[in-house]
């Protein structure tokens, strides 16, 4: 640490200032319009709702959350999302690899895979409601091959996975874009060398692409997790309304319902603070794990 700082101090003042100047606009915006409201929001979570509006209630909202079985279901579902996360990352990663390796038709795929991302979740949800309904096309297909129908969205054992599947389907195009940009930093000579050594696809991915794209992969992991935890509201609202029996409730959906329908803004603040902490822990944990296993720089 000391030698680096010494080197740092030997630079001219202008150089040392440059970093701060470059970072200042971003820092100001983030502090004023993100950090500060966050503090206000956390503060708000320690006050009451309704008749107790504005009065401090200590950890009252948090203990109410702890005792709400549906919030606990929401937390359990977060666990499921973390388990499913690698799948949500692997799919766009593999597809981007194939496109990068110029599978026949790669130009077409590159254009078309992004399409679902431009549609409103409400429309995507409505379409899948129809496709997945009990007497809908998918179950007819199952019946045609002699399988029993599945109540995809009406069975509490399958509903969460169905919605997550649709979410992945609707958003993998965005991760694909990030992966494709990441390939720009890959050293092509490594790729050529591996190919001329007759490396198989699996070897290529394992020894060239994964190490080369470690930062991109880390980035996609983190942003995909955030997407799963904070932008499934639209789909949930339309596809399951958190049901059946609360089985597809996610913290985000819980926050929304408490804030709007239930008029419990302070409780909603507490729930979103918990959501923030979960994301912080899971996200930083991921980065630490990926960094250790990647050992990139």
């Amino acid at each position, binding site marked *: 640490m000391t030698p680096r700082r010494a080197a740092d101090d030997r630079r001219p003042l202008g150089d040392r200032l440059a970093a*701060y100047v470059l970072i200042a606009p971003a820092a100001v915006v983030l502090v004023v319009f993100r950090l500060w409201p966050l503090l206000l929001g956390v503060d708000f979570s320690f006050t009451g709702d309704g008749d107790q509006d504005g009065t401090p209630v200590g950890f009252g909202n948090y203990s109410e959350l702890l005792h709400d079985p549906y919030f606990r279901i929401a937390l359990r579902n977060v666990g499921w999302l973390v388990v499913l996360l690698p799948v949500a990352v692997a799919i766009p990663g593999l597809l981007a690899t194939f496109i990068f390796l110029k599978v026949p038709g790669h130009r077409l795929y590159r254009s078309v895979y992004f399409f679902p991302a431009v549609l409103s979740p409400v429309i995507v949800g409505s379409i899948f409601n129809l496709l997945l309904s009990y007497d809908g096309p998918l179950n007819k297909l199952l019946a045609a091959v002699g399988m029993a129908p599945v109540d995809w969205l009406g069975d509490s054992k399958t509903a969460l996975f169905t919605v997550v599947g649709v979410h992945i389907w609707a958003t993998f195009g965005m991760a694909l874009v990030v992966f494709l940009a990441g390939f720009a930093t890959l050293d092509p000579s490594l790729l050529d060398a591996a190919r001329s050594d007759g490396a198989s696809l699996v070897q290529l991915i394992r020894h060239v692409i994964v190490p080369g794209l470690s930062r991109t992969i880390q980035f996609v992991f983190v942003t995909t997790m955030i997407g799963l935890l904070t932008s499934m509201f639209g789909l949930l609202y339309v596809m399951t309304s958190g049901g059946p029996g609360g089985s597809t409730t996610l913290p985000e959906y819980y926050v929304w319902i408490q804030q709007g329908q239930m008029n419990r803004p302070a409780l909603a603040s507490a729930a979103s603070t918990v959501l923030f902490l979960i994301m912080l822990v899971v996200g930083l944990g991921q980065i630490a794990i990926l960094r250790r296993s990647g050992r990139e720089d």
Partner: protein
Amino acid sequence: MKQRALWSVAVVAALALTGCGSAAGGDKTSNSGGKLVVWDWKSGDKTAANYIAKAKADFARKHPGVTVEFVNQPFDQYYTLLGTAIQSGKGPDVMMFNGGGQIRDRVNALVPLDAYVAQDRQRLAGWDAFSKDGKIYGAPVTLQGHPIYYNKSLYKQAGLDPEHPATTWDGFVKDCGTITKATKATCFALGNKEGIGIQFWLSGMGSGILSPQEYDDWIAGKRDWTSPDVKKIFDLWKQANDAGLNNKGANSTAMFTDIFSVFDAGKAADIIGLMSDIGHWKDFGDFLKPENVGVMTAPVVTAGAQPSLPYDGGIGYAVANWTKDPAVAADLVRSLTSTDALSAFYVDAGAIASDTTISTASAGPAVGTIVSELKAGKPALHVALSSKTLDLMGKLSQQILDGSVGVDDALRQLAASDKA
């Protein structure tokens, strides 16, 4: 050292900037003098255009100097948006509410309207859904309720008398069997994806199950969740599904977008529907022809029950307490509930308006039946419950259907939630 100083200056400056800002926040200012802003989720509908125009004209006669701006907000985000407006004490002067829990939970931000709407009390129905603790906070625009609609042509095809549906539960179930055999249509069209199906069931069937005394007690807040009749409502909910009276996949069928079309398409003989907005006599009439849409009272399950039409105030307008001149805003609410405006809404949108003086004579048999039953009608059972209990009931109703929760357990949880 220098960087640290610089950095702290930046942080302090930023904090100071917002700090000052937030201290000044929450001031209760209103929109400029000659303008009223209205938030709702109806004024953008084609079928409401006439209604809004008439209300505006009526208001312009009374207050020529005041302009009115309607902002049609997306319903999905409406109460969230309203919540932030209420918390920052800045927002519209007049806003739309659903009757019941949604307005009662937010009366702290509203002006009591008793003094302004006294003359309208007789003419309009549905005030209770917009009142809390004896004070009125909103004026009803529509009435919302849960008639049981049936498809007369299916009854005819099955050889039943379409003008005289069964009046008892056993007779009703028997008729359903006949219809299903003859036409393959199921008995009920039920959508419970959002957990709303149970609300329709509770209110639609309740008056045929509870005794009149129990019914009135329930509405008055004395609810006995352990009574055999209340249990019967939920037992039947389960039995009807197990006996195959409902369409398949009720838990995954959406109420408003999907289930009404099952009835529209003649795939179910009966449906507990609505009176206004959607899934009502006009909607069904458009698909099945008005003369084929019947309305029946709740079949009697327990002897002594007196079936009645369950209904309350549907949507209405309220005045925010930060508005500059509540009297002017209240006048706008009165214009929005004037007979002229409401008849336009009734004709174009097929809503049962709150105004009891509007003639509905020419609109087909179903609406005639509904209107004739309004007088003897009672408030719907589910509207008396808090938002929280309704939410819980929705979840439990799904679990009852898929067998993961028993009726007794569900009732115990509901009783606990209702008490809190």
